[in-house]
């Protein structure tokens, strides 16, 4: 390793930490709505404001995907895939996080109420 390598490492670390810092500051929003997509189509919208643990089942490419929600949190509880990456990911609670189950073609996005409209005028 030479000194250029160290410069490279420092630059990467700096940029990443800066980015993480910014997203941390912007990311503290309550997750209020979850959108579940299968094969790029919205299949379920879940209200995350309810203060109880609930389970939902959606269709995945390899079989049923079990989704569990708590207040302002959502996770994939069970799914069939080689590595089970998305059930290992655990609960997400920020609108900046997304759960992706590649083998099952399931994507879960969440939104805070800040993104919702308060009223519509026509």
């Amino acid at each position, binding site marked *: *390793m*030479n000194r*250029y*390598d160290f410069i*490279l*490492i420092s630059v*990467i*670390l700096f*940029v*990443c*930490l800066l*980015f*993480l810092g910014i*997203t941390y500051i912007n*990311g503290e929003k309550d997750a209020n709505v979850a959108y579940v*997509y299968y094969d*790029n189509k919205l299949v379920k919208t879940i209200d995350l404001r309810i203060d109880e643990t609930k389970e939902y089942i959606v269709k995945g490419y390899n079989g049923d995907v079990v989704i569990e929600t708590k207040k302002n949190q959502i996770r994939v509880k069970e799914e069939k895939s*080689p*590595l089970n*990456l*998305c059930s*290992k*990911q655990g609960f997400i609670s920020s*609108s*900046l*996080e*997304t759960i*992706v189950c*590649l*083998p099952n*073609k399931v*994507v879960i*996005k969440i939104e805070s109420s800040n993104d919702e409209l308060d009223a519509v005028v026509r």
Partner: protein
Amino acid sequence: MELRKLTHLSMLLATSVVLNIIESVIPVLGNIIPGAKLGLANIVILFIIYIYGFKDAIFVSIMRVLLVGILRTGLFNITFFFSLGGAIFSVIIMAITHRFTKLSVVGVSIIGAISHSIGQIIVAISFLNAPNLIYYLPYLLILSIPTGIITGMISNKVIEYYKKISN
């Protein structure tokens, strides 16, 4: 293509496929951040860039993705394009870095790991229509540093050794 080189590249291709499979059976890093990998196959690709050059490296890289697809994950599904995007992008960037910068093998390896993550994220965002995935990039990139160093050091040893024995 000269027979010796063809044989050699075939063996390297086989090695990269095996490394890829070994790695996917023991997903140590995947438990920390979904999708993260050590990138052992990158050792082979780096070696080819340094010994044979860019064209052979990208050829082996694409063949590797195809073979792993056939053997394990399936062809032309999302996972396949995921890997393909990461593989092609990282080979191009590594070759450019090797040619035009003063970075050592370890530096080029880190660049390779980073561009692999970026390539995958780009494919994932466009395929899954999930721009939020960009927020995983910093974690993947930070993780690229240790994995890049490890694979880079191994590559370095292999390249040095190869140069010694082939002289």
